[in-house]
């Protein structure tokens, strides 16, 4: 994956996202229960899974850092969590828009699935507060890594919370027997999911490339001073 050039990844993301959008708006049929508003879910669910993948990857890199003391793993963990937070923001925004259509309200505090995702989101917001309150160095890297590892525990809780939805109906995309749909809906969802994962990876590569370059420039500036 690392050997794929960034421009090729960017073009792949663009092609996949465009294809997914075309499928969402022109090919996928209207859902019988939810109607047109169900079309939000192709991206809302895909973005949520991309966010979970970013947080999971951040935890994996944090574990690598604690295990091998590799400073590159610390940077990778930080960038993964930053990406996860961006995708998490999109999950909250698209979810709120759907709630307004389906439930008539932007947010319902009594719903576990909403509140638990918000807890996960705020937990990772606090990661940045922790990270930037400590001076750069091994201590900051270690603290950040431990925090990132704790955060990954919240992912299955947030995922399971959708099944705990009580008063308000929240669609379930996946059940124990597989996806809850078929035909063009499944094709559209898979394309949207692939496009969002490739987009997340492209943005990750872009950001980590810039961060590494920034670090090397800082070292050069210090050496020249």
């Amino acid at each position, binding site marked *: 994956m690392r050997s794929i050039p960034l421009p090729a990844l960017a073009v792949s993301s663009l092609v996949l996202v465009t294809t997914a*959008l075309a499928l*969402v708006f022109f090919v996928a049929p209207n859902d019988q229960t939810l*109607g*047109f*508003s169900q*079309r*939000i879910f192709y*991206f*809302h669910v895909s*973005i949520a899974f991309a966010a979970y993948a970013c947080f999971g990857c951040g935890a994996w890199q944090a574990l690598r850092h604690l295990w091998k003391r590799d400073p590159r793993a610390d940077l990778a963990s930080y960038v993964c969590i930053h990406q996860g937070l*961006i995708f998490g*923001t*999109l999950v909250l*925004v*698209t979810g709120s*828009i*759907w709630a*307004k*259509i389906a439930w008539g309200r932007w947010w319902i505090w009594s719903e576990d699935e909403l509140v638990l995702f918000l807890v996960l989101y705020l937990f990772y917001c606090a990661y940045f507060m922790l990270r930037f309150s400590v001076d750069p160095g091994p201590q900051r890297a270690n603290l950040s890594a431990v925090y990132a590892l704790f955060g990954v525990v919240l992912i299955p809780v947030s995922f399971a919370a959708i099944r705990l939805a009580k008063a308000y109906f929240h669609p379930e995309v996946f059940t124990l027997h597989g996806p809850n749909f078929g035909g063009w809906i499944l094709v559209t969802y898979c394309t949207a999911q692939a496009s969002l994962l490739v*987009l997340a990876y492209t*943005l990750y590569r*872009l*950001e980590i490339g*810039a961060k590494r*370059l*920034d670090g090397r*420039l800082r070292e*050069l*500036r210090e050496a*020249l001073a």
Partner: protein
Amino acid sequence: MTTAEKYVTAAYCVVFALVLVYVLIMALKLQRLERDVDDLAARVPDEDADEETREPARIG
């Protein structure tokens, strides 16, 4: 356009706008890094210029 259609379109526009803002921020950051590289390159002494100004050594 129905209300549902308006909200769905708005949701996709928000996704697009946020990704665009992120890419713009990264583009600005890369521009700053490029300026930093130019700045550092200007601070590195030019080896060719040094050789031209250096006096030839006397041999023998």
